[in-house]
């Protein structure tokens, strides 16, 4: 599978935009900061950290000249599962991110409380992805930073 083969199925071509990258990186950073706050609920913190992961995955796509087709179901899944193709993220890390996506889906619709373990993992993974992505951009797309 390559990114190109997903065009029209789950991806669309979109020129890389330094403005979009800067906006999303800034928003992701703010979401991560919110996720670390201790005076808000686990559910809100989880949601914020998950949003950051999704935004960072969107940056990775945009830096490669793509965006998800947001009118198709599963665009979160697409952004996360293409991370090995966009920035070379290891498959094992993507499995964890994908399971967090699933966890969010389950709790969002059931109204169940989010376990602390999922919140911790989500914040840890958001921070790690932010670091990896920024390093990747610096090496591979310095013009976008």
């Amino acid at each position, binding site marked *: 599978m390559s990114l190109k083969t997903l065009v029209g199925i789950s991806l669309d071509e979109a020129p890389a935009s330094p403005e979009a990258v800067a906006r999303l990186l800034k928003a992701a950073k703010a979401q991560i900061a919110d996720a670390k706050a201790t005076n808000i609920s686990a559910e809100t913190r989880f949601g914020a950290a998950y949003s950051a992961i999704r935004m960072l995955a969107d940056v990775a796509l945009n830096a490669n000249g793509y965006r998800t087709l947001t009118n198709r179901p599963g665009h979160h899944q697409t952004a996360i599962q293409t991370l090995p193709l966009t920035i070379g993220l290891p498959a094992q890390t993507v499995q*964890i991110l994908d*399971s967090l996506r699933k966890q969010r889906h*389950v709790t969002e619709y059931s109204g169940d409380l989010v*376990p602390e*373990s999922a919140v911790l993992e989500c914040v840890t993974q958001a921070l790690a992805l932010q670091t990896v992505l920024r390093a990747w951009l610096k090496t591979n797309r310095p013009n976008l930073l």
Partner: protein
Amino acid sequence: MEATSTNPASLLFPASYRRRVLCLLLLHPERALHVREIARLTGTTAGTLNKELARLHAAGLLTRESVGNQVRYAADRASPIYAELAGILRKTIGLADVLADALAPSAPTLSVALVFGSVARGSETARSDVDVLLIGSLTFGDAVQLLYPAQATVGREINPMVFSAEEWRTRLKAKDPFAREVLAKPKIFLIGNEDELENLGRHQPR
């Protein structure tokens, strides 16, 4: 609780082809598959499988349907022993053993591990996930790394819910609906048992 040579299901169903076919079809009763698909999914050969499928059909455990020039087999849910047989497979080689083996490397960090939700109730559909509750000191990431590879074997997505013993106790005290539902509804234990689960809620940590 590892899968060993004294596993009750291996003892009761000594023919490995029969065991694999029953696990595949009875635990995914919505699937009607032709011989080659069954061979591929169970890692068996079509020749020997044909005979086995014919026997299981003759015994009333499988339905047989011709679609064009293909013959498709599926679990016969109308069989009077379907629910019991599927239950035995689910609690042993078809699901619980696979998950218990996957969790084995981290077993010392777990007080209780169990399957809850539709699969544990035997009311799963084609899209149902396997919901697994883990109480112990492992991280969510650890749980995913352990269980992710088992998804291919059980043919379903596995959704772990990981709690520390302390968080679980707090939830029980707060009468959290999720925790209460898990306690009240059918479960398949992978590590620990009903008593240990109850004790977790009762005692204070050391």
